């Protein structure tokens, strides 16, 4: 009571004046954007302009989004290539990003200004030529400018980078006889930045031991490294050592040197350490958390890449099911509810890796936690591009199908598909199995529509699995009718001729469809199916023939019964005499039919 009264009086006296809130220009838009929920029935926003471009399969999604991107890139390419046609400035105030970029060299005489321009425009070869000309002319080039040049060459590895607006961006690592080292060696004085550019370039282009030699050189010249140099060296450390312990020792040594040289580590430093630890086997498991705790002690907030590396250390692909199941829990309790921003190119690996672990350990609880983390703040951006998204959702959906009750699975199915995720045929088979597990096979016709829409109707395995599920047992009449419709739909697909890769009948698919039709009492269509066996050179199973006989018997059609025996005899089925006997006993046969049967009997006897 005393304490509470003190607290109370204390809080009564203290008035907290709210701090002035700084609003950014996009604050209102952000607030508005947060009011918009995702519509699971709509396609992605980027496709909403044009209903023709509503993708139905993942291939279409990829195609249409790439088409959009390349359309923009092509426009930009033309604007930049022919700037003189795009000089009219409509916007007031001026919008710089809509104007053509200057990509051509303006300064042509040999001067520092020309070199600066070439560096800015990232013309590596032209810049190197200009530098050489300047040196030949005896013009000294300032240290900063030379460093800029070194940065340029190291980053792009001696060949011109592809234009930002060109479709293809590939770096060709070509470290033979390179200009960076030549210029570096020609430099009258070198500072930390010069060394840094060289080392980072070497690491980027795979010359790892050279990078370490350069670092030794740097130390010999009584210079110290900067954080970028160390980051590069740490990421190169696993490449230059064989044993796990040696790798780790080298990293620890580098970190100690950082501390000695009073270099403040960054997030990327620790992410590089953890990434290297992923390649240190069991050593990683003991060292991962000390590294993270070091980060925290230094006040560096881990990014998703940090946690991804931790997961990578503890859950190797082969042994994921054993031990350390709690690490994912720990990581998730650590980060649940936090919003992350992209700080490391590896950040996007987290969600798919976490979901992989959930799938491997069949841990649906953690999967839900991972998924709820995805919904926090702007974390959805860190799910990565559409490829990563499809991996993530594929794993999530697979796990749901495996672990959850079918009602929950279907809820997620409606939520995710097709607005976020286009499952592959394996995903649909998982769903079918989930339907089978919970005895909701009556939903198959509905799923079949989705299968067709998603373009999986040409996947033989999927279609046959679906057919066999439908044919497996008898359902209530309404369901059986819908199954029959669905089966006829499938049949139409098989007989379609305008497909590039037509489905080919197998004995399984034929008998499944036939028995579905028989169960639905569509005898006529079933008979047509039976004829297809002959066309497709397939043999019906004996149980199917029995099923046929039952249905014929139900309608008491003696003519059909005889035909059935004939067909059976034509397939040389071993069940034929049995059928014949039953037909003779159970049906009222005319004389002619009896004769036909006895003919058949003698012919089969002869063939025997």
């Amino acid at each position: 009571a005393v304490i509470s009264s003190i607290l109370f009086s204390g809080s009564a006296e203290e008035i907290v004046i709210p701090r002035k809130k700084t609003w950014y220009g996009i604050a209102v838009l952000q607030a508005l954007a947060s009011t918009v929920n995702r519509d699971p029935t709509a396609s992605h926003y980027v496709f909403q302009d044009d209903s023709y471009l509503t993708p139905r399969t993942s291939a279409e999604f990829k195609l249409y989004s790439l088409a959009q991107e390349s359309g923009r890139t092509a426009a930009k390419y033309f604007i930049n290539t022919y700037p003189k046609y795009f000089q009219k400035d409509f916007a007031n105030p001026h919008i710089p990003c809509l104007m053509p970029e200057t990509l051509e060299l303006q300064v042509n005489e040999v001067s520092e200004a020309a070199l600066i321009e070439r560096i800015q425009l990232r013309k590596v070869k032209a810049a190197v030529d200009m530098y050489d000309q300047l040196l030949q002319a005896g013009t000294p080039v300032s240290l900063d400018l030379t460093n800029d040049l070194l940065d340029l060459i190291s980053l792009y590895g001696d060949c011109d980078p592809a234009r930002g607006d060109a479709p293809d961006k590939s770096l060709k690592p070509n470290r033979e006889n390179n200009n960076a080292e030549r210029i570096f060696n020609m430099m009258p004085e070198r500072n930390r930045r010069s060394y840094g550019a060289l080392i980072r370039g070497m690491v980027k282009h795979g010359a790892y031991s050279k990078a370490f030699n350069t670092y030794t050189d740097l130390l010999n010249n009584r210079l110290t490294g900067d954080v970028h140099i160390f980051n590069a060296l740490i990421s190169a450390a696993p490449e230059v050592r064989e044993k796990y312990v040696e790798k780790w020792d080298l990293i620890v040594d580098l970190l100690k040197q950082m501390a000695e040289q009073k270099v403040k580590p960054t997030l990327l430093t620790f992410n590089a350490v953890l990434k290297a630890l992923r390649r240190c086997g069991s050593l990683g498991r003991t060292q991962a958390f000390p590294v993270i705790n070091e980060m925290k002690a230094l006040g560096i907030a881990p990014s998703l890449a940090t946690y991804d590396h931790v997961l990578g250390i503890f859950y190797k692909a082969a042994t994921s099911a054993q031990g350390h199941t709690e690490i994912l829990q720990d990581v998730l309790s650590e980060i649940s509810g936090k919003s992350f921003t992209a700080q490391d190119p590896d950040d996007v690996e987290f969600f798919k890796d976490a979901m992989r672990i959930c799938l491997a350990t069949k841990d649906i609880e953690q999967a839900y936690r991972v998924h709820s983390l995805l919904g926090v703040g702007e974390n959805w951006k860190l799910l990565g591009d559409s490829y990563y998204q499809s991996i993530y959702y594929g794993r999530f959906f697979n796990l749901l199908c495996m672990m959850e009750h079918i009602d929950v699975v279907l809820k997620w199915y409606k939520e995710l598909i097709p607005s976020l995720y286009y499952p592959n045929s394996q995903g649909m088979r998982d769903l079918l199995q989930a339907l089978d597990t919970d005895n909701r096979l009556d939903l198959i016709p509905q799923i079949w529509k989705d299968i067709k829409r998603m373009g999986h109707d040409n996947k033989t395995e999927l279609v046959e699995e679906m057919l066999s599920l439908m044919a497996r047992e008898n359902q209530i009449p309404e369901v059986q009718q819908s199954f029959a419709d669905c089966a006829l739909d499938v049949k139409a697909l098989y007989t379609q001729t305008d497909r590039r890769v037509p489905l080919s009948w197998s004995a399984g698919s034929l008998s499944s469809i036939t028995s579905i039709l028989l169960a639905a009492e569509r005898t006529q269509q079933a008979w047509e199916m039976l004829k297809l066996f002959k066309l497709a050179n397939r043999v019906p199973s004996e149980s199917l023939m029995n099923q046929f006989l039952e249905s014929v018997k139900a309608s008491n059609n003696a003519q059909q019964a005889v035909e059935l025996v004939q067909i059976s005899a034509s397939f040389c089925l071993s069940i034929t005499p049995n059928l014949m006997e039953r037909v003779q006993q159970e049906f009222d046969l005319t004389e002619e039919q009896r004769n036909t049967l006895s003919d058949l009997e003698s012919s089969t006897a002869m063939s025997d």
Partner: protein
Amino acid sequence: MYRRAILSVYQRRSALKPPRDPRLGPPAWTHLACVPVFRAAVQLSRRAFGSAGVQLCEKKEGAPAPVAEEVKNGGETTEELQTEPKKREGAASKTEKELKDKIENRSFQETAAVQTDNTVKAKAQSPDFRTESESDSDSDSDSDSDSDSEAVSRAGAKTEENKITESAEERKSTPASPEKAKDNEVGKKGLLELLGAMKVEVTTKRKLKAPKIQRSGQEAPPRPGEMESTTSMFQQATSEAASQSETLSPELVEAASAAASTLPDSTQAKSELLRQLRKHEAVSQEQRKGETHDIGNIIADMKVGRRLNGRPNARPANQIRFDEDGRGYTHDRGITSELDGVRRRKNPFLTKRLSIFPVGAEQEPDTDLAAGPTLWDADLASQIVQVVNQRPRNGFEEMIQWTREGKLWQYPINNEAGMEEETSVPFHEHVFLERHLENGFPQQGPIRHFMELVVTGLGKNPHLSVKQKLEHIAWFRDYFQQKQDVLNEAETY
């Protein structure tokens, strides 16, 4: 095994302390309080180790030995029990060295049980180990060791007394059983306490040199680290207890028959003895079953708390092989293992760090970063942008994206939207414009009056920038100066 035993003995001592503390407030009483407790405990532990050995022997032999042999062996054991206290008394000393020797002596007598030997040796080493590992709590451990040796000697004396009376009673074939049974009972109890307490500080011992608080007699804060091994211990115990047969161990029977052979009516004495022993066995079984609650309590107490340091869970599960835990732990084990799963794990994010970098130390500010973004930074940024999902999810997000790219005007968030060049101009420059009338205008008169009105109007005009307002004033200045002649004529200037 050795180390575990060592630790266990030590642990017992420290674990037994807490109960005495509430009773006897001042720590000065420690010695005295310990003594009786230890007397029981030491006796019991000996009994425990002895029977461990016996049990192992039994296992080795497989089938129970013939009765005659059993009887003989039994006699030996009894003799041992009798001689040992005497030896103890003779060698009673308070130094640890002597204590150790003595116990080793004793252990050699008990060579029948191989394991016992090991255990006792291990036990004997305990003082050394303790002093070694605990140099920072010297006074405490000293007192402990003192009390220990004292306890041992006293225990020896006591045992001898007991034995003498017992043997006398045996000779008379009078029912000595109650007393003996009681003794045994106490023994079991003590053993169970010992076992329960044993694990409690193992971790403390090895790892936690810093938190010594509980050594000073306070109730030791329980540590989750022990739980794992505790469970495994009980698992071990249950499995072994299950293997223990209802019948007496052959060793014991042998001992009994040997003792009986010294008496005149040997067969009667033997059967009497054996019956007695069976009763003990039964009683102690009962006792053990009853005891489970206590152990349960101990375990429950142990669970609370967190492990403070990050030790990997690498302890082998079967380091300890204790025999006589009796049955009935299965349900306890269920609980413990369940709790184990919940609490054993520490949060790995709260463990130790690498400690390479100094925290909070002023590190050299990165001069290169101040120079502005380099090509490398741009490269990193573009890498990140490429991997991140940038697709807008709705129209507003697209507008945000366009705003960032500069294709869209900023959505107005206050009244100053789009007034970029005026942002640095304070409001009074806009409102208080009289000071601009100081130069070039008359101090009074109609023109001054007019200009004051102009300035007031300008001060209220939100549409002009300060520069435009000044231009406006300057225009009037020029105008009136040009018209100065006319104005002078009209005498208004």
